[in-house]
């Protein structure tokens, strides 16, 4: 036995006074009659007929509701004590469930007080049955649930807040996902556009350069073409084609600028030179025609365009005879010949001017003979103006090219192109311009490389 708030008393049978006090407490508890327990219990009690008419109610509940017993017993139904919302809930859920299950626990309802207030309560009911299982009456207990309801409402409020936050997070996530999908779609579109552009550029580029070089009887030809930027058309061009049964025309040049404008200039240049060569295969005449055409087309515009170009005619010597070449240049770097004896020499064409700048062309010409083992090399300034050195500040230059060619010679056309290709690779990002190389040569046949088969 404990006293509220005190330590256990030491057992002491000799203490008559304490024993008497305890007895008195027990006696008062025993006098707490069932009647009083019902009426003054810390919860509401009521009993109703099966139709809800209140037959008995305790003082606690009457006190909570502020009602007189006479106004309630036999006069009101349980549902009459509820708020309207509570009554609706009672009719649609509480009463049917109670009738089906025989009991019902912990249902949250609201009661109306006489003063117009609301009392949140938790209600439990049980049906009392007769000997034939017939329902007789309903016993109900009512607990004051004001604190608990406030707590539940707080929980509900927080749950709604959490759900709202979750919904918003979900919306933001969906938004981000949509933006990501759009970005991805835009990226794919851009990629597709880029590919289409690259395809178109490749087609266009092929129209500016020959697909393959024609077979030159008794000679070799090799080319190399490098475009500085994969999404820009190159400004360099070359071609090789027969003009009649004995003679071949070739050219290599560089138009000013890059991209579509340069490409249209390249196209005009290439087809003009081809037509001019068939009309009059004299190199200077072909370049003069080109100069006239370009100047007529662009010379008076606000955006004058021009090119540098070497145009040549070669006549292969039949039966091992020397191959003659005649070239004309308009402002282009000099051609280079790698001799069979290991020398390398420029074919100077000084004084030639850019094609298309002036109404009348200033064209410089040169001639040479290629013996077996000799190779003629044409190139654009992408090669000679590649930036070299640790800081990429000096240009490769014609002297270095001459030295390189001298070291290389003798070399057949493909061998020459392969060596220069390696040289260009070595420039790395110092090679920042388009570069075209065209090599034509007479194989070092019979008397040199294969003497055994020369004289049967």
């Amino acid at each position, binding site marked *: 036995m404990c006293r509220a708030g005190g330590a256990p008393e030491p057992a002491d049978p000799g203490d008559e006074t304490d024993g008497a006090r305890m007895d008195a407490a027990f006696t008062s508890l025993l006098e707490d009659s069932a009647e009083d327990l019902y009426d003054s219990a810390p919860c509401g009690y009521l009993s109703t007929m099966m139709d*809800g008419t209140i037959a008995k109610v305790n003082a606690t509940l009457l006190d909570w509701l502020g009602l007189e017993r006479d106004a309630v017993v036999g006069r009101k139904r349980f*549902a009459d004590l509820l708020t309207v919302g509570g009554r*609706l809930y009672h*009719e649609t859920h509480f009463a049917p469930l109670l009738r089906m299950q025989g009991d019902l626990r912990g249902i949250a309802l609201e009661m109306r007080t006489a003063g117009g207030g609301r009392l949140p309560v938790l209600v439990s009911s049980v049906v009392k049955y007769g000997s034939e299982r017939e329902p007789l009456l309903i016993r109900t207990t009512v607990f004051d649930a004001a604190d608990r309801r406030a707590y539940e409402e707080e929980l*509900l409020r927080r749950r709604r807040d959490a759900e709202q936050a979750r919904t918003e997070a979900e919306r933001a996530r969906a938004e981000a996902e949509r933006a990501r999908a759009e970005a991805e779609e835009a990226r794919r579109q851009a990629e597709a556009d880029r590919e289409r552009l690259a395809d178109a550029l490749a087609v266009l580029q092929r129209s500016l350069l020959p697909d393959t070089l024609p077979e030159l009887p008794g000679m070799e030809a090799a080319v190399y073409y490098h475009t500085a930027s994969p999404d820009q058309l190159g400004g360099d061009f070359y071609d090789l084609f027969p003009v009649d049964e004995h003679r071949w025309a070739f050219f290599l040049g560089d138009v000013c600028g890059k991209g579509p404008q340069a490409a249209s200039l390249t196209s005009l240049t290439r087809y003009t030179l081809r037509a001019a060569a068939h009309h009059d295969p004299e190199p200077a005449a072909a370049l003069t025609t080109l100069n006239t055409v370009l100047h007529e087309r662009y010379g008076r515009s606000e955006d004058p365009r021009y090119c540098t170009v070497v145009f040549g005619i070669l006549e292969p010597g039949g039966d091992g005879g020397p191959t003659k070449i005649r070239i004309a240049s308009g402002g282009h770097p000099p051609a280079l010949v790698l001799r069979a004896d290991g020398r390398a020499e420029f074919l100077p064409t000084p004084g030639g001017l850019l094609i298309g700048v002036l109404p009348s062309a200033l064209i410089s010409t040169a001639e040479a003979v290629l013996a077996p083992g000799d190779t003629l090399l044409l190139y654009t300034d992408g090669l000679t103006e590649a930036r070299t050195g640790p800081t990429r500040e000096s240009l490769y230059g014609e002297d270095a090219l001459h030295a390189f060619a001298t070291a290389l010679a003798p070399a057949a056309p493909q061998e020459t192109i392969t060596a220069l290709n390696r040289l260009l690779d070595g420039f790395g990002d110092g090679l920042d311009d388009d570069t075209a190389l065209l090599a034509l040569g007479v194989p070092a046949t019979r008397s040199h490389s294969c003497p055994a088969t020369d004289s049967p």
Partner: protein
Amino acid sequence: MVIRRRNNVTVTGPATGPTVVLAHGFGCDQNMWRLIVPALAERYRVVLFDYVGSGRSDLSAWSQERYSSLQGYATDVVEVCEELDLERATFVGHSVSAMAGVLAAQAVPERIGALVMVTPSPRYIDDDTGYRGGFTAEDIDELLASLDSNYLGWSSTMAPVIMGNPERPELGQELTNSFCATDPDIARVFARTTFLSDSRDDLKSVSVPTLVLECAQDAIAPRGVGAYVHAAIPSSRLVTLAATGHCPQLSAPEATAGAILDFLADLP
């Protein structure tokens, strides 16, 4: 088969007898009819079902869009009638279900030959034309708040169990109050649809024999409402049961079954 499962359709009584379809209202499920089914099933084939969202229906078939109008519930009725290929069945609807039955009879008149409207109300809210439905809009808001306070054994983790385990019915029975256990979100939609609907104009379409059953004391559908429904349907008969509450099939099962059987016996 899909609909049988979706609406937890159960059929009892003689297979060849005239068919009576019993439809529960807002609140609980087909168990609402359990006290009168035995009396009806002696002579009639009795079809019971749960609306989608209630009882052991398939909750995954529920959508707020469909069940936010009485037409959605009427479509459940129509689909159950079609699934069982019913002809000229008597549709017994409790409370709001009585109005779903009116809409269903409009849609498939060949399948529904008679209506029994148990404590019906075509409009719960009073208006200024003198109509007395018994409630104000604020009262309905209070009801929705009551729904939020009582989950009746509902727990989302148990939803699949309640939702339908025809193979293991004992799972559902273990839950306290499971007859009326409804997902609170679904209950709120059903309550809104029920108590905010206005079906007064639809009553005029009823031409089949109709029994209007009302209770002497009904906190949800007061006496004037039963008289209103009876007056709006010329082919109707009004019977007032000496019962209290909104669910006479529970509070006065013998009288309710007797009134329905009398009506059925008089049908052509």
